[in-house]
């Protein structure tokens, strides 16, 4: 059986890829997908750690993360659509009415 640290490193890599995507991409939908990817890397972390500790709490946590991610999609897409009605675009560089 492979060591837990392999899974943790893989999850950290996926998390980093997702975070980089959020910072670099300009399309709100892609950013959104990157955030989902980060959440899934957290799920992988949780599952690996739950196996290492041999208890179920990590697995329960994963279900909660998935439920929250689903709720987040519903809210996020609604906000994106509301924004498209005003801006006709989902490029976040064009979201610039408010600034200091």
């Amino acid at each position, binding site marked *: 059986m492979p060591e837990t640290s392999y899974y*943790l490193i893989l999850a950290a890599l996926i*998390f980093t890829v*997702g*975070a980089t995507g*959020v910072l670099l991409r300009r399309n*709100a939908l892609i*950013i*959104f997908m990157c*955030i989902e990817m*980060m*959440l899934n*890397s*957290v799920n992988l*972390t*949780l599952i690996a*750690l739950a196996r*290492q*500790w041999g*208890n179920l*709490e*990590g697995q*329960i*946590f994963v279900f*909660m*993360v998935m439920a*929250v991610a689903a*709720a*987040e999609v519903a*809210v*996020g897409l*609604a*906000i*994106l659509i*509301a*924004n498209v009605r*005003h*801006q006709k675009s989902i490029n*976040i560089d064009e*979201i610039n*009415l*408010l*600034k*200091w």
Partner: protein
Amino acid sequence: MDTALLFENATVLLPEIVLAVGVMVLMMVDIGLRKQNESGTLAALAIAILVLGMGASLLIWGRPPAEYLGGAVSDGFALSVRLVVLIAGIFGVLLSRNFLPSIERQGGAFYSLLILAVIGMMLMGTATNLIVLFIALEIFSLALYILSGFHRENPRSIEAAMKYFLLGAFASTFFVYGAALLYGAGGSTSYVQIHETLSSGGGNRSLVLPGIALLLVGFGFKVSLVPFHMWTPDVYQGAPTPVTAFMSVGTKAAAFAGFLRVMMVALPSLYEQWAAPLAILAVLTMTVGNLTALRQSSVKRMLAYSSVAHAGTILIALVAATPAATSAAAFYLFAYAFMNIGAFGVVIVLEGRGEGDVEQDRFNGLGTRYPSLAVAMAVFMLSLSGIPPLAGFFGKFLIFKAAVEADLAWLAVIGVLNSAISAYYYLRVVAAMFFREAEGEITCNCGPAINFSLAVTTIAVVVIGLQPGLWADLLRGL
């Protein structure tokens, strides 16, 4: 699992249960009233539900602290947080009366979301388990994303919702990653068990520090610590002002409550590691917040940066990490609820029906046109800057005192210096009201609900300041 366990100590969550049932009733009533335009009835119902929730919190107040299924606890600190959040919720409903046409059209949705946010914030204060903490955080965050975009005709409001959502969801992933690593370090999601494992030298030590750092990013975003504060002014400015008033107080109280409990119950054995970075963040947050607030012309943005600075002050309590410091934080949040909501209330009065920004020039000559409004605003501004004998002064005093007692005198000194800086921009508003002439007509959007909230908050700020001892019994620390 034994089903009897489900009901044992369920009274711990009585206020949350009352509110959750209330929200369902509210949504049903909303469906029933769809035909008539009955936003007044819905608002009254929402306030009744929140008052019932407050009654339920006070009902379980006298009981000895109990824990429900290892996930939530009812102690003095949880009660203080509940009170602050419920007060913010009630004023949030009151201030939103006669404010936006879209709130009146969809009152049911607006008030349900507001109460759902209150439930999530209350849960943050009671959570003793990382899973419960994460769910509570998401409950109120998701509700607030929608609420901040509730002014759908206004592109600024939508933009605020969009920014808040994208950055909030991004920060949540850091938060949950941190929670996952702490679970890996301690082998449990329960704070007490994490503490037991870590203090006995067991667990995956290498995961602890990354876990704390990631958790810190998530919390730092929610309470808007510098450098995670960039969303705050945009969202506070773009969101409907009643939502801003509610959010600025409620989020702060809830997130600090969760933050304090995780750090002090689950991770006290690592105090040496997390205290120093938090102290640096506190200094940065206070200084950057105050210096940026100096050069804002929009009052809403100024209040947003001032709330960043206040977050820095409350963070001092966490760096001190003593029981006295946590009760000082509870007092500070209680005082902050009244003075900050009051200040946003005055902005709402001047703003009219959600027409946009209030520049500081709008306050010119307010003292001669609307003396009572100007006096109320002066009280809030003086209290926010920490001038005795108002509520804000005692909040700051208690936190600085706790810091000095914890051998952090240097941090208290920086806090006091920052209060001096902040006095400049708060007093500028007061000076504009009383020493400048009004340029044009000042429109004033008054209504019974807003007048009542302003009167109550003004009196509360003065009374809390004059009688700070009265509340010591109610507002307890960890």
